[in-house]
């Protein structure tokens, strides 16, 4: 479980602006997509003025000026979903926020003092004349992947509920058997699940990630109780919370901010997870069910590649060939450890030499996989 959260995804929303700012001053205004030029947002302590409220779909640049005396935030909402945001804009500070916006109805909100719902101004985004706001192949990939993520989230809830019930019943053996399977859908879509930053630390924090005095909840708290203490007495609340948290996730994945680039990047992150957490045996320090997670991470990465593969085959056929070969190699390397029904040998029985072999195939896939996002977004 990494500590990456939604904020990175949000930060990425502003990246284009920052990069443009750093390398090509003024390029935002020249880009074809943001036909009307940047939208000036002037925030004060009691007002939030936009230079215009009719926008064109695609890349839009908001030049924000905090002319008030309090720190402010600016959000772009579609209903209650945050499309992009910029927090902590100090008095006198100017900031350029760049984001991709599809056609639709939105609100731009300034939040002086960073509390409350903010001062909202409705804006209308219309499709660019004669142009597509999002490449249809990319949109198709996003739609297919969103459906997959929802499917995984839907599958997750009953699995976790069953696991939690065994924990609460004090049935240690049954809970141990249900532990690893209950994590599989989570592990398959982990980068998306993590993009809701508040959830990941609650459900997937490892003991090693804790700081002094921090409460420990989630799967790994229960894992330690089951495998080390042999008892889950007193952890009924932790089990209930886990169910509530994954149910919360189920309701939120439709709002995940997905793009061809983020899907490609997510595939790479899943392999990073395997390389840094599973191959090393750090993720499942007590249950040693790391290979179940490995399999799920791999399946999630393969799905991400699958939805992007039409684009990759068209844009970079050599990369497609390479990825398909390397996915097959990782699958082949993992297969000998399978014990049927989605279970795997305990990772503490996997020798140093075997772990090194696994690391090698994971690296061999991870390297070309890291090029997927740039190709998918091209």
């Amino acid at each position, binding site marked *: 479980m*990494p*500590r*990456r*959260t939604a*904020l*990175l995804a949000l*930060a*990425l929303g*502003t*990246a284009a602006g*920052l*990069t443009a*700012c*750093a390398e090509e001053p003024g390029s935002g205004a020249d880009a074809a997509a943001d036909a009307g030029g940047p939208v000036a947002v002037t925030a004060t302590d009691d007002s939030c003025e936009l230079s215009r409220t009719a926008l064109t779909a695609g890349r839009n640049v908001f030049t924000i000026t905090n002319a008030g005396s309090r*720190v402010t935030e600016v959000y772009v909402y579609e209903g209650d979903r945050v499309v992009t945001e910029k*927090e*902590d*804009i*100090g008095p006198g*500070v100017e*900031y*350029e926020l760049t984001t991709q916006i599809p056609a639709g109805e939105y609100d731009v909100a300034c939040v002086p003092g960073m509390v409350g719902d903010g001062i909202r101004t409705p804006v209308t985004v219309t499709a660019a004349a004669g142009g597509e706001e999002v490449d249809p192949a990319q949109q198709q990939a996003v739609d297919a992947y969103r459906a997959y993520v929802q499917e995984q989230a839907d599958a997750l809830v009953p699995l976790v509920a069953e696991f939690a019930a065994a924990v609460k019943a004090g049935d240690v053996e049954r809970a141990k058997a249900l532990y690893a399977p209950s994590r599989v859908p989570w592990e398959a879509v982990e980068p998306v699940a993590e993009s809701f930053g508040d959830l990941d630390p609650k459900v997937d924090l490892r003991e*090693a*990630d*804790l*700081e*002094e005095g*921090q409460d420990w909840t989630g799967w790994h708290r229960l894992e330690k109780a089951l495998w080390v203490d042999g008892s889950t007495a007193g952890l009924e609340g932790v089990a209930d919370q886990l169910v509530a948290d994954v149910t919360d996730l189920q309701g939120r994945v439709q709002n995940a901010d997905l793009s061809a680039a983020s899907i490609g*990047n997510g595939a*790479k992150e899943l392999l*990073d997870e395997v*390389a*840094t957490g599973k*191959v*090393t045996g750090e993720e499942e320090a007590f249950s040693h069910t790391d290979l179940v997670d490995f399999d799920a991470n791999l399946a999630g990465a393969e799905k991400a590649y699958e939805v992007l593969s039409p684009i990759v085959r068209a844009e970079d056929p050599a990369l497609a060939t390479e990825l398909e070969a390397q996915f097959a190699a990782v699958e082949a390397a993992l297969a000998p450890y399978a014990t049927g029904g989605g279970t795997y040998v305990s990772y503490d029985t996997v020798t*140093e030499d075997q*772990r*090194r072999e*696994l*690391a*090698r195939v994971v*690296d061999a896939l*991870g*390297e070309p*996989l*890291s090029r997927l*996002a*740039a190709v998918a977004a091209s």
Partner: protein
Amino acid sequence: MADVSRRRALGLLGAGAVGAGVAGLGVTGVRAATDPAPSAPVVPFHGAHQAGITTPVQGHLHFASYDVTARDRAGLVALLQRWTAAAEALTAGREVGRDGAVGGPALAPPEDTGEALGHDASRLTITVGFGPSLFDGRYGLADRRPAALADLPRFAGDALRPERSGGDLCVQACADDPQVAVHAVRNLTRLAAGAAAVRWAQLGFGRAASTSAAEETPRNLFGFKDGTANVLADDDAALDEHVWAAAGDGADWMAGGSYLVARDVRMVIETWDRTSLQEQELVVGRTKGEGAPLGRTSERDPLVPSELPLRSHVRLAHPDNHGGARMLRRGYNTVDGTDGVGHLDAGLFFLAYQRDPRRAFVPVQRALARDDLLGEYLRHVGSSLWAVPPGVRPGQWLGQSLLG
């Protein structure tokens, strides 16, 4: 101490003239006659503060932590006196011991191990510190432990290994020539036999920080400039406020000293290398090429935390978020071969000097450990904390203000 420059001695050896023939020559004179380098490679050992803190960061590091095994306080004092004399010689480019590497009796092992013969002083500095464990009951120091030397708390994600952490004494040897730094620690360790034993040690290279505006900001193994906003050696006001302990701080014997936090931080190199440039820059908060704060154009442009991604490294570490706390960093890059699965065993040996870690390193690291996006690619595996006593004047010895 052998009053023989290693360079001069080698020259004499080459000419077949072994012995103490130049013993009467002043070191400076010897160097002037033999060293063609335009700038003196000797950093003065004596001074109000120990060398190796504000000294422009040398190219190489050998850092060693020791457990003190001396039977009593007198044994500890004798060790520090031996180390002081040896450090005076080594930092001046001289050999250890009266007879040095080759001047002694043929049937006795040489006093100096000899691998630095022919190497100049190479700006060697030797900096000695006392760990919290020295202040247990063994040497009558229990009531002398400074409050600022409080044990570091556990930070989120810490994966500390006891065998890479802590210790009673430390030696930080820095030099531009790695062989000179290694030679220093090797000989100091030999002089410690029976009084102190090495607990762990770390080699470092490619200084990962600079302490002078004239030096180009070096790069860490993530490929980013590191230490742009460091406390600089010529900023006396900042040094007095943030680096040097003062008499009124609670431990008078530390006046003119500093507190050192050393962290063995491993980097998850392969994963980082597969991360897009855009994400690398968002995680750090600076551009990779120039080192400019994101949204700005040059390295020295003002860094306004509120303009940067919330969880970027430089935003979280910024003094504005920590009551203005700053540290003097002089860390080094490390590569210790490979780990068990073929990945680079590499990282940063973080060294930061400060007036009080409770107001500097601790709050900064607490914030970083919680939220820093860079934490994804870092693993803290070693940690130690040291009270680095003030410098010594000729005739004094290291730690005299504590043990004298």
